[in-house]
């Protein structure tokens, strides 16, 4: 009897122990992150369509990488054409898609319109390429604009940095008339803050009226005795200018604001030494762990060298918004306060919602092409 009871107790004890020993079969579910919808405005058609392609690729890459980092992101890419009008309509159709924020646009007028539209429709807009005068809009109470691209003055600062680094004695400015406002802003800063001697400036007319004007300028500049020539045209024309300048016997170092003249494959094909250029980042000088990833994956997926301004900044803009939005709460204050990792560096925004370019964590890179390869100046 007692034995039975004992046995029962033991069995019960064993069963109890077994029960206790067995781990819980139903694991507690991890909290599902809400989807972050990001709209991207890309000039797929019109004048800037080649830049548009780059930005589109970069945006897709950003989505991919963000997902790998565990963010639940959806990138919606819309064509914003080459006109502010089309930009505004595209912006609003993205708003209709219910996006958290919108990044991109290419030209200054597009950025300006997008900024106003952002304020009207209360959706955050991160300008990733244009250097238009957006700060004034922020100052006048438009809290919805941010910019991770350079502002006009930083273009100047980089140019000055180049002059200092290379200890150039003299420099000459080549402006591009269709980008007069942008160039003038940059030039005035250079003139005010470099020790090098200013040897004059010339302006290349818009090719719409005078397709041969770059030749005239190139030949007239080739005669000048100057160490560095600063070219303010990021477009296709800059390549023509450089070629013509060298043909005309000019041998000064050419510093380009980037764009076409910052593309590795173009430089390699052109194979003209002494072309310096700025880029948001270069593969040879990794800023963050994302830098290499961006350049390698871009090459892997799209078969061409990655664009190192318009492309990389669009890529970063998407990552910035992703990181900010993932924190939850008010996106604007997140962007204002937080620090964000991108391929070009670690971003922070100042009181005018302008990325702090020039801070030690976020600096443009200056490369120079010579002897068939790109070296980093700073």
């Amino acid at each position: 009897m007692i034995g039975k009871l004992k046995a029962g107790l033991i069995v019960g004890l064993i069963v109890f122990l077994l029960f206790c020993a067995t781990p819980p079969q139903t694991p507690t579910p991890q909290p599902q992150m809400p989807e972050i919808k990001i709209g991207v405005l890309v000039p797929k058609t019109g004048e800037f369509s080649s830049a548009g392609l780059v930005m589109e690729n970069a945006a897709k890459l950003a989505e991919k990488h963000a997902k790998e980092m565990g963010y639940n992101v959806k990138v919606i890419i819309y064509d914003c054409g080459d006109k502010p009008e089309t930009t505004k309509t595209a912006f609003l159709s993205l708003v209709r898609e219910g996006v958290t924020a919108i990044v991109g646009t290419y030209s200054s007028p597009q950025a300006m319109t997008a900024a106003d539209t952002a304020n009207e429709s209360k959706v955050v807009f991160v300008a990733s390429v244009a250097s238009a005068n957006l700060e004034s809009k922020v100052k006048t109470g438009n809290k919805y604009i941010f910019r991770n691209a350079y502002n006009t003055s930083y273009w100047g600062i980089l140019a000055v940095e180049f002059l200092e680094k290379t200890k150039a004695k003299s420099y000459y400015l080549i402006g591009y008339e269709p980008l007069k406002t942008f160039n003038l802003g940059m030039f005035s800063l250079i003139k005010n803050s470099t020790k090098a001697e200013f040897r004059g400036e010339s302006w290349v007319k818009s090719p719409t009226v005078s397709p041969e004007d770059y030749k005239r300028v190139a030949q007239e500049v080739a005669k000048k005795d100057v160490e560095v020539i600063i070219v303010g045209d990021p477009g296709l024309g800059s390549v023509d200018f450089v070629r013509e300048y060298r043909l005309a016997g000019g041998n000064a170092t050419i510093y380009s604001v980037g764009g076409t003249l910052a593309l590795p494959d173009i430089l390699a094909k052109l194979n003209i030494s002494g072309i310096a250029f700025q880029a948001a980042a270069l593969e040879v000088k990794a800023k963050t762990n994302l830098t290499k990833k961006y350049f390698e994956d871009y090459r892997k997926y799209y078969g061409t060298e990655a664009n190192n301004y318009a492309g990389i900044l669009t890529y970063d803009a998407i990552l910035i918004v992703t990181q900010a939005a993932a924190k939850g709460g008010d996106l604007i204050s997140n962007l204002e306060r937080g620090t964000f990792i991108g391929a070009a560096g670690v971003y922070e925004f100042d009181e005018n919602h302008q990325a702090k370019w020039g801070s030690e964590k976020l600096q443009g890179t200056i490369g120079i092409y010579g002897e068939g390869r790109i070296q980093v100046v700073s």
Partner: protein
Amino acid sequence: MLVNIAIRILVLVLLILPAFLDCYTKLLAASALTLAIFTVSWLYLEKDSGWASLGHSIPFGVSAYLFAINPLLIFFSPLTTFLLFPLSIFGKHTFPFASFVFSVFLWYLAHHIVFEGKGGEEGFRAPSINLDLIYLISVTILVLSCLLIWKISNSYFGLKVKAVRDDEIAAKAIGINPLPFKVLGFAISCSLASIAGILHAAIFGHVSPSVFSPYFSLFPFVAATIGQGKIWSSILGSYTVVFLSWFLSPYVPEFHYAIYAVALILASYTQSYARSGRSV
């Protein structure tokens, strides 16, 4: 006949309906409206005065700029007539491409318009007006301009304008002095185009050199072509183009330029244009 009525009803629906829809649709509709006014103005010049302008973005864009720089300047916008009219010395056949080239030239010049440190390639911020209000205004102006043009071209004055279009010597032979009627034809058209330009600037709140771009210089032509050169269907035409190029472009980027190409090629086969047929 039945088709015409259908078109008119459809246009009326398109005018009224968007007023009750969301902001995005309203914006699209409003821009379609202003461009419809633009098209109507172009159509008047083409049909009644016989001048097919491919540079109609000149009055359109210049007035938009005037409005952006200082709203008081819009009273000068009718003077844009005298930018376009002098090109008529090239004659009817050369005028289209003379005006086209000139508009491209202005497109370039617009990059240099700097006022109080603003402007250049960035363009100007135009005083943007409440969308509902501007929509209402646009509808009213479109209706008024249609009435105006209908009234004018059926008046004795309009008849004289058409006469000058057909044969200036014959006009002289019955005591009509061609010059004033030519100028007035241009003036009416350019003033309407100016109004369209101002509304356009007000809707988008920003004016940039692109208002002179070939897109706008060719727009009325394409719209009128789709509309077979009739006023009502041309209004429908401009709605179609705006829908195709701005609403669809985010989804099918290449598509809307293709539409342009097709429309233009078809245009050259359509017969329904005014223009003096037998020249002696």
